[in-house]
């Protein structure tokens, strides 16, 4: 299980994360990401990693949650 966290200071609203991880990230009216805090199962981990890796300003982090 994992989830992503946005650093709101670093984020510049490029919006790639919402394209790459639409299952948990949407954009607000100004193009900044709104993250659904629910942990993503293993089937979504690839999308989460893709979004984290694609952020041009490294504002996204993958948080590993302990398997419950």
């Amino acid at each position, binding site marked *: 299980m994992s989830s992503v966290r946005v650093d*709101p200071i670093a*984020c510049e609203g490029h919006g790639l994360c919402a394209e790459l991880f639409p299952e948990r990230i949407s954009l*607000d009216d100004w193009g*900044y990401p709104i993250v659904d805090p629910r942990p993503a199962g293993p089937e979504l981990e690839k999308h989460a990693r893709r979004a984290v890796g694609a952020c041009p300003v490294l504002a996204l982090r993958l948080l590993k949650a302990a398997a419950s």
Partner: protein
Amino acid sequence: MRNRALGIALDAGPPAAALPRLLAGPSHGGLPDLRPDELIDLAEESGLTGRGGAAFPVWRKLRAVAQAGRQPVVVANGVEGEPPSRKDKLLLGRDPHLVLDGVVLAAAAIGAREAFVTVDARARSELEAVQTALRERSRRRDRVRLRVVTVPTGFVAGEETALVAWLSGKPPRPTSTPPRPFERGVGGAPTLVQNVETLAHLALVARFGPTWFRALGTPDEPGTALATLSGAVRKPGVHEIPLGLPLADLVAAAGGATEPLSAFLVGGYFGTWLPAETALRLELLDAALRPHGASLGARAIVALPGSACGLRETARIVRYLADESAGQCGPCVNGLDAIAGALERLAEPGRARPDDRARLARWLDQVRGRGACRHPDGAVRLVESALRVFATEIERHARGRCAAGR
């Protein structure tokens, strides 16, 4: 237990029911010589909570910083960026030694050798009072290096991570957390940030003991606090109140209302509007305010007269908060500006667009919880309370009228 410096029993303070406590000064001297754990225990027994707005138990913060394992730093927060609050400036000007006593005691309790007293750069006379007090003290007896630092004026400059950034040589803007200052603060050291009023209470707790402290207030919210009442009252200003005082008594202490009141803003610019008839029945306690969606915050209270428009006042405050955003987080920068714009239209009779209310509701949802600090959340809370309390006014404005007679 005895106060070794004064040679008196600690609980032999002034009469328990006497007010004022904090504003009785100036009151230098009689710094009790306590072991580090003793002060933290006294703080715990007293039930003292932070008076800067968050009401966090003081002993918990002291202990967390004391146990951080590295040489910590103390920061006394006297910045008070909030326009409707004057209490920290009054205290710093009236009795800076009481605040410095609290700083010295807190530093000794957590093992800090360095402490900063921060003051708004525009508060010249308060700054001078603190500097004079510093010169009057003995460095050898205080055993901590005390420095006063001015902070550029701004609403968010008093936010604790912004203060830590400023004292670490960076612009006074909030930073992403974690780490919180108690983990990694000024120059990377564990940092105790406490409001100046809190530190003054701590000094009195050390001097007179927790039983004395608890003689006023309620068992769950003990002690006294400074409250700033402004707006439509005869004598606006700062009052020291026992926690639990009915708001009606505070209004009476300020000479009463100058005209019929329609609402109160409780808890400052991040606070909550309450209808006057509801608010006047309430005690000034978080426990009494919570069911109404409100909290005391730093106890800045504004009395809104019936002749003023609550919507217009809210729009003015939200525009101020939008302008005071540190400008770092997209949702805060864009969202508060948009929310302020919608409110300005709603407050102008007949000017709102058909979708303004729906958009406002959406924006409040989108902005909440999305800044690095609580600045956007405070604004959202204020606007939500305005939408509740001034709901019929919004309808009236949509029909081109305003109850305040504009």
